[in-house]
């Protein structure tokens, strides 16, 4: 029985939340809807964990949807890369579902709760689908499922701030243009090869070699996905969307949506297009590296001057995406590993930070830094969680953020780009400043008023601290993240068969004898 279910894990992974979504509306009871959401996301997370365990050794699972064999049928193809991303998305989804119940009480009209859960489940479905599928057009469809539900989720923030509506609208315009660019790119690829299966595409593209249509296809996909992952300067939708969305949506989006987009970028860059000729590499190195560096600095500086905590974190996200892109565009294994690890670590860290902010909003109804003065004494758990996760954001040793930066700096040094290493350290210092501003307000400033603020509810504290502890745990024990990321990096690099000089993996000689 169990093995029969597990055999269909790839499909169930997305189908469970997809079926659960309409159930929420059908039952129409918000508490029931919450229970359904929690159950569905937990089941998805379990499947994701199972899939990750299956693929951690580098093996690949191919699942034929509806029994139609690829390349004609749609194939779900799971390897270490997307199993890892699936795991991130699904586990964050489960935690967010747990967290949502109390959080939306304050921020969303109770009559709309059912729709919130529905949209949330659809968004989860979309993100999981994008990650798991091996079919290029299917990526687009799932991308749109997640995008459309995201616009709805962002707009639900209108209960607290009407600007959520315009934020959602702008996001819709941008997101649609991005997705359409993506679909144009897919169209060109199809014209060129006559197939949509990614593995098949990769083979045929390799056989065809470089040509103009391929380049144009690449450009459209690159820009389209760049928009989705908030690559600087295409990030303009992100600050508003994150800051006006309901807190729980900010948590979910910050931790998952951009990460999935990064995954799609990785998949197309490495698996589909490959690197054995110069154009993609040149694009990355002439466009993405400078943009990533600018993002690291410009967004961090903007973050320093923000008065709203959510907005500050949103800009910080743009900067952090800069790190991920920088790692990827170094095109060596440590860089790719760093990018993938940071994908995970940043999801955990930013999720925890937004969760803490959500709790502040829940209790004091504001996320402005000046309203958070003295909150460190009034909401000790959440403030401590914020600080602990903030340390990770900076990259203090023994937090997950340090591991990412360590790999990233290794990767830059391997390329001989020591100036990039310096820039990474420099931009981390900016993170110190903006995190410190908050810490100062929370702990060192006199409280705004003496009116006692209650501790956050446990249903918010628990998921937040799970995230925080995860960020600390993965800062000390890099077994899982390191292995998954390096297996993933291996797979991606093998896919493009770039033969680089002797592999430089950190960690050789034993020390201290």
């Amino acid at each position, binding site marked *: 029985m169990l093995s029969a279910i597990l055999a269909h894990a790839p499909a169930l992974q997305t189908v469970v939340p997809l079926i659960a979504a309409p159930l929420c509306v059908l039952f129409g009871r918000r508490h029931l809807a919450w229970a359904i959401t929690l159950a569905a996301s937990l089941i998805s997370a379990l499947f994701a964990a199972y899939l990750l365990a299956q693929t951690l050794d580098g093996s690949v699972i191919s699942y034929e949807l509806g029994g139609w064999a690829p390349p004609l049928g749609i194939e779900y193809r799971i390897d270490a890369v997307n199993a890892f991303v699936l795991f991130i998305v699904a586990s964050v989804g489960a935690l967010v579902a747990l967290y949502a119940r109390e959080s939306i009480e304050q921020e969303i009209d109770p009559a709309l709760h059912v729709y919130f859960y529905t949209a949330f489940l659809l968004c989860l479905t979309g993100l999981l689908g994008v990650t798991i599928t091996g079919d290029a057009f299917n990526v687009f469809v799932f991308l749109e499922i997640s995008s459309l539900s995201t616009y709805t989720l962002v707009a639900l923030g209108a209960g607290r701030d009407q600007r959520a509506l315009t934020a959602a609208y702008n996001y819709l315009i941008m997101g649609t243009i991005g997705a359409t660019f993506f679909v144009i790119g897919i169209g060109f690829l199809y014209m060129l090869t006559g197939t949509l299966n990614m593995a098949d595409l990769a083979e045929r593209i390799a056989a065809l070699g470089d040509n*103009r249509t391929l380049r144009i296809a690449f450009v459209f996909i690159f820009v389209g996905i760049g928009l989705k992952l908030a690559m600087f300067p295409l990030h303009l939708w992100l600050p508003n969307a994150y800051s006006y969305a309901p807190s729980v949506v900010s948590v979910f989006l910050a931790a998952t949506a951009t990460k999935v987009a990064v995954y799609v970028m990785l998949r197309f860059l490495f698996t589909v297009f490959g690197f054995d000729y110069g154009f993609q590499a040149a694009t990355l190195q002439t466009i993405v590296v400078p943009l990533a560096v600018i993002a690291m600095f410009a967004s961090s500086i903007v973050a320093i001057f923000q008065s709203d905590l959510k907005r500050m974190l949103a800009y910080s996200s743009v900067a952090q995406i800069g790190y991920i892109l920088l790692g990827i565009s170094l095109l060596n294994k440590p860089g790719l590993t760093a990018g993938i690890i940071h994908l995970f670590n940043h999801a955990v860290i930013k999720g925890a930070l937004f969760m803490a902010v959500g709790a502040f909003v829940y209790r004091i109804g504001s996320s402005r830094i000046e309203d958070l003065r003295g909150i460190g004494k009034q909401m000790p758990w959440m403030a401590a969680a914020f600080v602990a996760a903030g340390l990770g954001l900076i990259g203090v040793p023994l937090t997950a953020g340090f591991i990412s930066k360590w790999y990233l700096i290794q990767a830059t040094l391997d390329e001989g780009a020591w100036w990039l290493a310096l820039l990474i350290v420099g931009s981390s210092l900016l993170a110190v400043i903006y995190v410190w501003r908050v810490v100062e307000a929370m702990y060192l400033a006199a409280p705004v008023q003496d009116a006692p603020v209650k501790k956050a509810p446990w249903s918010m504290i628990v998921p937040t601290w799970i995230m925080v502890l995860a960020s600390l745990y993965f800062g000390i024990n890099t077994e899982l993240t390191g292995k998954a990321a390096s297996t993933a990096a291996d797979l991606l690099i093998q896919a493009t068969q770039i033969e680089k000089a002797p592999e430089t993996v950190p960690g050789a000689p034993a*020390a201290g004898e």
Partner: protein
Amino acid sequence: MPDIFPPALIFIAAAIVLPVLPKGNLRALFLLAVPLVAAHEIWQLSEGVTHTYELLGYSLTLMRVDQLSIVFGLIFSFAAFLALLYAWHVKDTVQQVTTLLYAGSAIGAVFAGDFVTLFIFWEGTAVASVFLIWARGTEGAYYTGMRYLIIQIASGVILVAGMALHYHETGSLAFGALTLGSLGTWAILIAFGIKAAFPLLHTWLPDAYPAATPTGTVVLSIFTTKLAIYSLARSFAGTEILIYIGTVMVFWPLIYAAAENDLRRVLAYALNNQLGFMVIAVGIGTPLALNGVAAHAVAHILYKSLLFMAMGAVLYRTGTAKASGLGGLYRSMPITALLCIVGGLAMSTPLFAGFVSKSLILSSVAKAYEPLIWAALLFGSAGIFYVAGVRLPYLAFFGEDKFAGAPERPKEAPWNMLLAMGLTAASCFALGLMPATFMSFLPYDVAYDAYTPDHILTQLQVLSFTAIAFFALWRFGLIKRPAPGILVDSDWLNRRLALAIVKLGAYISRNMWGLMSRTATRRLDAFLASIYRAHGPQGPLARSWPAGSMVLWIAVLLGFTLILSFSQSL
């Protein structure tokens, strides 16, 4: 011997458990038990690598045990015990936790077998210790703590940079002997030098130590600097430049100590001077000298703690430790006064630990035929006895009775402080009485007898004439009780000059930025507005640029990438 739990982790585990315990005697007892358990563990260690772990693919050494690390581990544990006894009455959880973390980090660093582990604990000492300053709770303490933290963290950052460079060069992360020469090793030396309070890198020490709480300063005085000395002894033994650095350290702080008003700052400068002794001995680098380093670190931790404890007790009972506000206190705090005098004597009088260790260092310098350095050390010996052994107790406890007219005389120090001071004094005495046992702990097996008639006679001459000179000069009015006021040290450079430069820079950049951003905004606005005006018929379009500009950026990036694709030949 893998069944031994790493002592550093004992402290850290205890720090995690501690907040759960109810405040009061149970917790205080628990606190006292922790360093004793750790000391017991260290006692049982046998030499060799006992614990390794994996981090980021490196195999690292958590525990590398040899006689040098055992000596430092033991004295750190024991001093932590004394300091915690001294702080028995403190109810502040933050200070208790950070004291444990601080001691644990210092001990962890001592046993670290590689630079990564060292770095982790190195920063641990920095972060944990600053709370002892912040615990004072005043605004000044906050800023002082920030300055302290910045420089301590900087030391760690320089260490990690040096470590990375060194690793790139040699492929080794081992925390062992280094040869100066490459940039990496210099960076490591500077990182150590910051914590060891090398001249010009020293200002954090007299800045921070007088700012901490009465008990906090005792804890601070134990670990950070001695950890640096340990690291220097481990990595840079026999490095000649250290001899000269150490000589400057012997002289320079003494002058400040002789002129300073705040008695805890006097002790901080005196501490810096004693570090100079150890740095010189590290520079000499012979087995005898290194034995001297280890012995002097032990003796120095004990008697300097004792002196800081005495001044802490004064601060605790009177609210100040400034000479200008003290005097005649022996009437109210006679036992403290007596123990403070013992602390002064313990620095160099025969029968005390300081005599043995100082003789070791002096002999090692003499054996290396460095007459000038030797004379400098002799000057340092006399000077330190003058500032910390005579002048300090006299200013605090004797002379004019400043509390004669006060409504309430200060009380004698609490029992736990007296007990801690008494135990510290007793251990100084015990080590001085049993030089053979003391020597048997030292890292190298070198025969040495401190109690020769030569040593005893000359040392007593130095001490007695130092004291005579003090009293004579006091009579003549050449030495006076200092008036209120502070002395500017080289920290003026960073606290005033640098601040002024930063302010000026900020002023200029603010204005420049304003100007630039105004110009840029105007240009950009004009540019975008012209685009919009040309293409869009409706109103002032600059204001609607959010959505428009987003799409525009897409077009720009798309265009740019397309151009790139066409510019590259197929």
